[in-house]
């Protein structure tokens, strides 16, 4: 394994070549004493003298002491790092060639550190992206910060209320949730960090200035304390407080960079979780407002409604229905069923506007066309051409019959289910609402005998794609047939049956929102009053 740079020369020749070699060279004799060292070696090893023993550095002395089969070794010399390669000389003894590897070594150390940092940041990203739950994100942030950056960590999230949520990971890695116990401005820099703008760098603050709630139980004396803002997507995501036992004035430059990268990841995850939570709250709130009401008998007329939102948008959809009982200014019940073009939140907002506007327009319900015209004017905007189609039904009990005025505005006309089993379309049509400069509408006057029903539906029913091959529309003919089978049933049963048949048709297929409403003239309470002149049968 050994070879001499001056293999074919004499011992003297080797010594000469060693003296002029560009590397520090030490020649150790077979007896273990230094035979010779060149200038570079005497500068590097000032204690080594020819004739004496090599004592420093110890790693080289040890290797040189082993006479049999010397091998390459390496170690520190002062603040530098060398490797020593032995050449067994023909005359006996070994020449040790020293190669400065300080830079290589520091690169290796740096590479290793960089690998660790990258691994940590990757791990952080993975752990943080695994959850859209804010509490969970705060926990992960506190735990990772405690593992890699500090002895204990606190994560504080901004809040609209005065109570700021806080997650603590203490020196033993235990996580606890709480709220900030004191006003945030008692901690220097915390208010600024929570505000998020202007961006502030990490601050090392005097540990003695920290209020007691900041220090986990049993932590002992705080050596140093840093506050790092967590930058979010344009919104402040919170602040990270790092506690260390060892007194350090600041992070090293690399630690600083890593803390910043970590804070950016944690902040992004936390603000995403916050936005998600906020969005959820908004759609929950909207949903509560927009969910169709439970219907019942109003003023002696049966109302029943069913709503199945599209799976694509889930919860808030574009279909809606309402039943407004008579009030001071309007003697009739007004039932509304409609469909807003589009999906999701935008459709839901438009739905809300239409329902509110219609509510305000109830005193105009004696003239559907006028009501629709006012609604159209209120809904028209230059921003978009999103529209709604709907059916208005003004309902009034007249003796045992129910008198309806029905107007379809760009919407499929309701079906009238007669006692004799026939199903006819109400003779009404009109323009959709919200886009055209002027609307027209024709109102149908319908009279329902006891047991007869007016069925309102959205195109989610007729356009439901399914059937044996999964690609056929349910269509109006099938709906009419289904309705004919329900003649004479109570309103709630009709709605349930139509929904069931539609669901069977759909199978597992995609569908739009589906809304159905039945307005039925009840037959029950007047069974004994049959006088032979009224229409219809009176047995179920």
């Amino acid at each position: 394994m050994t070879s001499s740079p001056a293999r074919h020369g004499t011992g003297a020749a080797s010594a000469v070549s060693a003296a002029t070699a560009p590397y520090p060279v030490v020649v150790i004799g077979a007896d273990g004493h230094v035979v010779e060292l060149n200038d570079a070696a005497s500068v590097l090893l000032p204690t080594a003298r020819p004739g004496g023993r090599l004592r420093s550095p110890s790693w080289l002395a040890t290797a040189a002491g082993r006479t049999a089969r010397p091998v390459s070794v390496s170690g520190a010399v002062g603040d530098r790092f060398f490797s020593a390669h032995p050449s067994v000389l023909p005359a006996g003894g070994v020449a040790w060639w020293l190669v400065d590897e300080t830079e290589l070594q520091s690169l290796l150390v740096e590479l290793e550190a960089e690998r660790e940092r990258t691994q940590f940041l990757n791990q952080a990203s993975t752990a943080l992206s695994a959850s859209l739950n804010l509490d969970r994100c705060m926990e992960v942030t506190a735990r990772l910060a405690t593992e890699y950056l500090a002895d204990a960590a606190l994560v504080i999230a901004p809040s609209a209320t005065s109570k700021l949520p806080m997650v603590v990971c203490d020196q033993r890695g235990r996580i606890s949730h709480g709220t900030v116990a004191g006003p945030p401005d008692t901690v220097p820099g915390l208010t600024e960090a929570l505000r998020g703008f202007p961006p502030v760098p990490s601050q090392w603050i005097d540990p003695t200035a920290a209020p007691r709630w900041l220090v986990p139980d049993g932590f002992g004396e705080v050596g140093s304390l840093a506050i790092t803002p967590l930058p979010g997507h344009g919104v402040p995501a919170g602040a990270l407080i790092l506690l260390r036992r060892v007194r350090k004035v600041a992070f090293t430059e690399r630690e600083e960079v890593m803390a910043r990268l970590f804070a950016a990841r944690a902040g992004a995850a936390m603000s995403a979780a916050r936005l998600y939570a906020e969005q959820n709250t908004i759609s929950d709130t909207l949903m509560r407002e927009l969910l169709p009401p439970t219907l019942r008998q109003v003023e002696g007329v049966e109302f029943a409604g069913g709503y199945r939102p599209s799976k694509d948008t889930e919860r808030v959809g574009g279909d809606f229905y309402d039943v407004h009982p008579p009030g001071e200014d309007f003697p009739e019940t007004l039932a509304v069923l409609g469909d807003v073009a589009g999906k999701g939140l935008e459709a839901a907002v438009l739905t809300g506007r239409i329902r509110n506007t219609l509510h305000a327009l109830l005193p105009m319900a004696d003239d559907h066309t006028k009501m629709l015209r006012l609604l159209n004017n209120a809904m028209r905007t230059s921003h978009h051409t999103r529209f709604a189609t709907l059916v208005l039904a003004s309902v009034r009990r007249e003796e045992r019959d129910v008198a309806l005025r029905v107007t379809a505005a760009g919407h499929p006309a309701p079906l009238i289910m007669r006692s004799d089993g026939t199903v006819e379309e109400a003779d009404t049509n009109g323009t959709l609402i919200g886009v055209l400069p002027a609307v027209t509408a024709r109102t149908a006057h319908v009279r329902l005998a006891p047991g007869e029903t007016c069925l309102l539906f959205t195109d989610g029913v007729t356009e439901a794609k399914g059937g044996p091959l999964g690609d056929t529309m349910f269509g109006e003919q099938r709906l009419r047939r289904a309705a004919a089978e329900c003649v004479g049933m109570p309103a709630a049963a009709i709605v349930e049956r139509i929904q069931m048949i539609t669901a069977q048709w759909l199978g597992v297929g995609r569908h739009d929102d589906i809304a159905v409403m039945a307005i039925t003239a009840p037959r029950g309470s007047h069974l004994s009053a049959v006088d032979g002149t009224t229409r219809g049968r009176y047995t179920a």
Partner: protein
Amino acid sequence: MTTSPDADPTAASPSVAGPHIVRLALDGDLDYDTCGELLLRVRLALHERADVEDLRLDCRELGVVDSTGLSTLLQIHRSACQAGIGFHLDNIGPALKRLLELTGTYEHLSSSQRTAAPTDE
């Protein structure tokens, strides 16, 4: 009449038929998923030259049009009218005709009066 030269089911392919007429052949379904692309193509086609006088949408190969699709046609009609460009739907099939009649938009979309969009208060 211009038909789509390629088989892309959702493609609207522009072809300039005369000096001032832009024709687009609509092919496939016009719904929530495809209406964004149609709006974009129409916008590009109308911006290609400044002297467009007429926009003709050929509906021969048009499939199912849902409410968002109709909303898109209304949007294109409105934009065209505002820009002083005539708007025409050619080869309206029975299904589209039914939808336009049901929603009372047939007359509106067949007429290309240069009306202004409503202004917001």
